[in-house]
């Protein structure tokens, strides 16, 4: 009796061919993207999305064409932070036109597809029972379509804002085998650094994805009156030495930055001379230098 390998095809479904077509679609779209950068942390609440929005703006202000993928399928926030939440996606025969900010940064986010403010992501199914068995596949499929079906045009940088969790980067690394690098975000707390270390190990040692650098977010607080720097978190816990070697920048906490995110306005445009703005622009330069060298 013939074995599995003796049979020439899968009875006509050509599943491998269908998967290959998906991969080809992705590769074709990514061919017009020079550099892909994943923004990750492993831990939630460290400011990844805010950093992504501002890094995208900083890179755009430096004269680059920039696209952003809000890879947080279930907790999308970038459309609001980048001020394009009311944008309507336009579907054409070759793709989906992304939302575009006033500065020209392009964005695709699940938030742009959801019906209402309080609408969570619910996938159509005969029953939601046992949805855990297929929900992750849906989310990876959605991310694949976000990257491959958005009309990015020619991009210098495509930033991907990953949701928390060390398992997210492997999904992205499989979708984008030539992922340019990873920016790791942490805050000066032991809890954050504990989880972020796992993300660094996952990227560097397991997936062999280059670490562009570590961002220490909310690193300190600048007094609005005297300009003195004060620690926001425990002063006795400096950034881990392993992180210090790869530091891309330390961003001071600034309530105006949080407000700009809430309002969907450009912090860098409104407060170009603020300490955090200067750090963000320096980080954009370092990212450019990383890819130029």
């Amino acid at each position, binding site marked *: *009796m*013939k074995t*599995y390998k003796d*049979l*020439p*095809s*899968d*009875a*006509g*479904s*050509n*599943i491998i*061919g*269908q*998967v290959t*077509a*998906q991969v080809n*679609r992705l590769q074709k779209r990514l061919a017009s993207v020079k550099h892909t950068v994943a923004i990750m942390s492993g831990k939630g609440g460290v400011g990844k999305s805010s950093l992504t929005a501002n890094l995208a703006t900083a890179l755009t202000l430096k004269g680059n064409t920039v696209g952003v993928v809000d890879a947080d399928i279930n907790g999308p926030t970038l459309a609001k932070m980048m001020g394009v939440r009311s944008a*309507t*996606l336009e*579907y*054409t*025969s*070759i*793709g*989906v036109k992304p939302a575009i900010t006033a500065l020209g940064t392009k964005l695709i986010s*699940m938030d742009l*597809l*959801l*019906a*209402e403010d*309080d*609408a*969570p*992501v*619910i*996938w*159509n*199914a*005969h*029953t*939601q*029972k*046992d*949805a855990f*068995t*297929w*929900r992750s*596949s*849906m989310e990876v*499929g*959605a991310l694949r*379509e*976000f990257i491959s*079906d958005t009309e990015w045009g020619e991009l210098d940088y495509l930033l991907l804002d990953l949701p928390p969790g060390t398992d997210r980067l492997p999904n992205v690394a499989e979708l984008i085998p030539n992922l340019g690098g990873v920016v790791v975000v942490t805050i000066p707390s032991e809890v954050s650094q504990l989880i972020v270390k796992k993300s660094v190990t996952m990227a560097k040692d397991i997936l062999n994805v280059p670490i562009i650098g570590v961002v220490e977010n909310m690193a300190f607080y600048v007094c609005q009156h005297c300009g003195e720097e004060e620690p926001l978190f425990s002063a006795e816990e400096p950034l881990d030495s392993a992180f210090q070697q790869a530091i891309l920048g330390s961003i001071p906490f600034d309530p105006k930055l949080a407000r700009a995110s809430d309002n969907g306005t450009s912090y860098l445009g409104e407060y170009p001379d603020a300490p955090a703005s200067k750090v963000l622009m320096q980080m954009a330069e370092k990212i450019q230098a990383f890819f130029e060298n």
Partner: protein
Amino acid sequence: MKFLCTDCDTAMKFKDVTRPEQGSVTALFECPDCFTEIAMYLNPSETQMLKSLDLKLGGNNEAAQPMQMVRSQLETAKSEPMSSMFSSETSSDETTEGGKCPFTSVISDTFQEESVPDEPTGPVWTPEALERLERIPSFVRPMAKMGIESFAKDNGHDEITGEVMDAARGNFPAQF
């Protein structure tokens, strides 16, 4: 998946796929030598897994539409772009292409099956239950309705009352 006709020692070929019933799909395969047919049943989870991978039984000869998986599978999507896309494309496909992929039809049928407002063979809603159903947020209402009807059928209720809705409450995430 590969299928072998053990009598002929010949690889079987995909033949057809039937309409879905309760979320499950039946695919038919045939031996090209002795024409023996076998049926493969996919349970709702298996059907859903296939949909989540955006793969189609029997092959896919159609050009991929932008974000077709997200747009067709997102229950809580904005209605305007979704409906405009699918109404035009469906009619276009039907008029210009005769050989539509069977599984594409199956997916469309699945949506119809799930969105039919008054299923004639299903349990009857009492006015009180319908009133409660209307209070459920619109974006989860179809899913809640389907879940309650499924619960009623599984538990032998011909009529959906407030009590049945209470009993079904723990069956799915939406609260009502």
